[in-house]
């Protein structure tokens, strides 16, 4: 069994402060900088860590009204070095999906890239809650694959483990660590009735299945599920004027909104709620896995399950869809 390193809270904090800004989830569940490491809750905070990398609202450029865009002033990527303390495995893994969207040549988002390069990800193992489903995706609350350093909280500090070159380098900078054995990683939670991930092709082949319409009638398209999802990447581009200045903004958007795909003249390929619910499920469980074998567009954080005002349960829905599809396939066979 590999060794971990036992660190005191004080020496970890000192090393993080030396590195730069320390981002943590604050009491409201948003990401903020602090001087001292806080006590964390048991699981992921309200807002996913993606907010630091692809923020809900960011400036692309600004210019003075009337001055003409020749004097356009691009927003500067934030390269301030620092670290993020308290990243949970589900949110960290979601960044791997966002990397695929925003770091893929030829269209690399320099703002996203700067943050990915300047912020060290310090994960903290969780005490899984009632809507935690990372086990569905084959990892668990101790998963270190997508962070730089993984910490397991102890009564008097942390046991740390590096999982990247820069994580290793960082741990070497922490004073007074002692080698200790690591506990075996715990399996992630999942619903007891869960039988496995759906086959992306089977889902796609059932694009016209009546089940979408049945499920779609119990969705009000508020979009909370996408707004809080750590993997959702959609945005819109808009100009806003404010006190004589015009800003071009990149603002988070969500595919559950009825006019997300509404085109000028009124044509809308996803006119009804059911077609938008289908889009969300298929994008996560069929299109992304088809385009990127090995990846799924969901990491099981369970926020959408927790926050849906109408009590829709993504995993129960996916399970139900596959059950219906499989039953019918059997009947035909």
């Amino acid at each position, binding site marked *: 069994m590999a060794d971990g390193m036992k660190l005191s809270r004080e020496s970890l904090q000192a090393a993080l402060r030396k590195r730069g800004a320390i981002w943590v989830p604050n009491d409201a569940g948003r990401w903020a900088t602090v001087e001292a490491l806080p006590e964390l809750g048991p699981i992921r905070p309200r807002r996913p860590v993606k907010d630091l990398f692809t923020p809900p609202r960011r400036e*692309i*450029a600004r*210019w003075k*009204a009337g001055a*003409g*865009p*020749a004097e*356009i002033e*691009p*927003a500067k*990527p934030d390269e301030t070095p620092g670290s993020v303390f308290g990243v949970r495995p589900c949110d960290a893994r979601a960044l791997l999906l966002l990397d695929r*969207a*925003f770091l*893929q040549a*030829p*269209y*690399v*988002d*320099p*703002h996203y*890239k700067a943050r990915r390069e300047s912020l060290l990800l310090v994960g903290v193992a969780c005490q899984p809650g009632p809507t935690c489903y990372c086990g569905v995706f084959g990892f668990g609350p101790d998963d270190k694959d997508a962070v730089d350093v993984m910490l397991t909280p102890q009564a008097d500090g942390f046991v740390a483990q590096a999982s990247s070159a820069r994580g290793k380098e960082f741990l070497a900078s922490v004073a007074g660590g002692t080698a200790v054995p690591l506990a075996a990683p715990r399996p992630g939670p999942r619903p007891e009735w869960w039988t496995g991930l759906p086959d992306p092709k089977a889902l*796609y082949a059932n*694009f*016209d299945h009546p089940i979408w319409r049945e499920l779609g009638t119990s969705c009000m398209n508020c979009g909370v599920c996408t707004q809080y999802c750590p993997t*959702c*990447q*959609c*945005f*819109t*581009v*808009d*100009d806003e*004027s404010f006190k004589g200045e*015009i800003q*071009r903004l*990149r603002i988070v*958007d969500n*595919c559950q909104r009825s006019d*997300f*795909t*509404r*085109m*000028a*003249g009124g*044509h809308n*390929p*996803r006119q009804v709620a059911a*077609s938008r619910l289908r*889009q969300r499920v298929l*994008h996560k469980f*069929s*299109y992304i896995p*088809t*385009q990127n074998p090995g990846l799924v567009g969901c990491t099981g954080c369970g926020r959408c399950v927790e926050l849906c005002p109408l009590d829709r349960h993504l995993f129960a829905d996916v399970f139900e869809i596959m059950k219906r599809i499989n039953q019918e396939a059997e009947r035909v066979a």
Partner: protein
Amino acid sequence: MLRDPLLPLAARISERIDETADTVTFHFELLDEIERKAFRYLPGQFAEISAFGEGESTFVIAGDPAKPERLTVTTKRVGAHTEALHHLYAGAIIGFRGPYGKAFPVAEWKGKNIVIAGGGIGLAPLRPIICHVLNQRAEYGKLTIVYGARSPGDLMYAADREIWAKAPNTELVVTVDKGDANWKGREGFVPTVLRATAPSPENAVAITCGPPIMIKLTLPVFKDLGFAAERIFTTLEMKMKCGLGQCGRCNIGPYYVCKDGPVFSVAQLQQLPQEF
């Protein structure tokens, strides 16, 4: 330093042509000399254009790809941003980013006869193909263009049509749904006129763009004429915002139309969910 792909370049409108009551063509050039000299695009590729402060929207680059310093878009007024664009005249500065998307495979079409069926503003994405074929006239076979609009006043590209009508080994058939007192040309919908024109499918490719209803009725005509689905091409219209495959807007099936399209063969479209 890495440039934000969402950041537009400034361009100056050099010429404005009011094509119809609601459609304007802008010719423009990039202000930055290095960018202007390096810029290249292929027929079918599109760009994001902005009337600064009013938004941004997607237009196909409707110019002659052999003259990439003079860029062109033809814009129909349908909403807030296109309305703002139509208030701009020669000399005004607009935002430009592109080119984006997969082009028509014109290189693969060398040696073939080219049949084009366009309706209304759908001629815009077809114009670069026509320019390209006429630039390299010896490389391609016969060019047939069937172009229709609702009324004589809705026909665009008057100057181009004069050139095309006289071009070697080229047949231009213009039709309107309903003529007026002065109209001496053909009347009838594009699919009907295409059927009557009956271009041969032999060693030929077909390209069609136009309003959805026109495309819907034109595809069966090409099929009846004997064109295989692999040899009929069109552009798919989905709402777009980024053009980069990032904003998620144009996703359909496992594709992003802005990256994997907008040009598709009919054979490819048949594989997609009917969600457009």
